[in-house]
């Protein structure tokens, strides 16, 4: 399937404190509230303007810092199906997989795009097409891909325990 996505473009070393401020981490439970804080200290207009299907394209080390999961879930709740970055903070990359949001590593793409541009994700050819170029989506190990394809770690475990395994 080939899908077209509008992009939100950000720079290097965007950390979890600006993606989802620490002061909200223990008190917000409501999904609409968590969603409304996405990128609050990075781009205050994002949560109100983002549309389902949009993707984030960022520079190096997106999501460095805390292990807080809401830095992923707040973006997922906005309907963002994938985050493309030059590289990811290690804990953030794991949280993406476990929340069923695809972390795609493409170095340099953020330099070629501006917020509002569009790109294509081709899940059959496993490529991203943007700015007149084509990039391969790096493969994930099979067991990691299986978590993503399940929709995340929670769903995978729910199925496993429901099946009595």
């Amino acid at each position: 399937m080939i899908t077209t996505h509008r992009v939100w473009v950000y720079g290097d070393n965007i950390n979890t404190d600006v993606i989802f401020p620490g002061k909200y981490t223990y008190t917000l439970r409501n999904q609409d509230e968590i969603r409304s804080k996405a990128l609050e200290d990075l781009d205050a207009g994002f949560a109100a303007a983002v549309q389902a299907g949009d993707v984030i394209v960022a520079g190096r080390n997106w999501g460095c810092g805390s292990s807080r999961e809401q830095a992923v879930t707040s973006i997922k709740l906005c309907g963002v199906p994938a985050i493309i970055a030059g590289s990811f903070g290690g804990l953030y990359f794991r949280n993406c997989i476990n929340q069923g949001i695809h972390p795609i590593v493409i170095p340099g793409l953020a330099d070629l795009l501006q917020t509002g541009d569009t790109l294509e994700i081709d899940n059959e050819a496993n490529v991203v097409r943007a700015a007149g170029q084509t990039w391969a989506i790096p493969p994930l190990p099979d067991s990691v891909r299986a978590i993503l394809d399940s929709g995340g770690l929670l769903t995978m475990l729910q199925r496993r325990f429901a099946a009595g395994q």
Partner: protein
Amino acid sequence: MPTFAEKALARAAGLLVAHAGDVLDITPNLTFSHDNSAAILRTFEQIGAPGIAYPERVAITFDHAVPAPTTMHAQNHADIRLFAGKHKLRLFEIGRGICHQVLSEEGLVAPGEVVFGADSHSTHFGWLGAFGMGVGRTEVAALWATGSLWLRVPESMRVTLTGKIPAGVTAKDISLALLGRLTVEGGQYRAVEFAGDTLSQIPLDDRPVLPNMMSEFGAMSAYMPPDEVVLAYIRARTSRDFTPIYPDADAHYTDDVTIDVSTLEPLVALPHLPDNIAPLSQVAGTVIQQAFIGTCTGGRYADLKAAADVVRGQTLRARLIVIPASAQVLKQALESGVLADLINAGAAISTPGCGPCMGNHMGVPASGEVTISTGSRNFKGRMGTPDAPVYLANAAVVAASAVAGRLINPEDIQS
């Protein structure tokens, strides 16, 4: 040829060997979480597991917002108490201290073990020669339910420290020097192994700072080879058997970095990244309103003692907040007179815990106010509002800056 990480993760996966890049199911010796356990237990209850797989391998500390500042925080704590009681989980109450410090003091992590915590500073446990890694809330729920978690074995990099540590330079400054040189992505998705004769010069209380701050370096984990001083510390706290792990002499490292500490001077991380480093001498004079000594990085007894030695007999031009990392640290400071020195100078003392480090509890700055902190992280908005800049330094520098009301070298404080 294996690195420490390859050996420790092979052991925790029940394998003889493991290689960087392998994706393994790891069964850690300990899984811990803190105030976020309220969210974790709600996820756990959705999984449908019959119970906690290994309740004896679970620990929970209340530390991020203690005592509860709002009814919502109190309700989270109440839910966690109920859950921990029901499942017979080890729970450390409010006031006991910060997870990494408490679990070290309690002897719950030993050399060669693997520990996963719902906190990015879980790299901390490398100071005990353990593989410590931060994980997400859903991952802790999965660990409670199944006892294991997937992990791609990281490549390792070696950081060798050489030379004699100069007076006034601490493990904090060494960490900042490494960040300044290689940036916040210098250790990305790697296990850092510290090496070199300098390690044994670092006082015990100061050792956790190095692996703790490797979280800011992007590392998944960080390791210091446990020497006799560390082995004695842990043997005094647990009677269980453990087998330390050391890397092979010919282990493969993606990077091999050497830092000569003998040329270092006190350093400061400027807003808004912990790799934005300047020598203190270059930024001295920067006006501050608040100084904060605390956190898992900089709230141990040695930090309080260093601060007391600076502020004793002084009056403060900026407010000073001191939050011991644990009840044991607080007690030691009380018994030695360090606490009295701090109070006499005008410091505000608060309940052991994380305090304002992540903008979650008391001691947050107002808009426009500048804080200098012994913490590890100075991201924009870290302490609660994006227009309150945070500087990071060692405890003596933070205390001296409270005395002067501006960044200053402790040597320049008139006694």
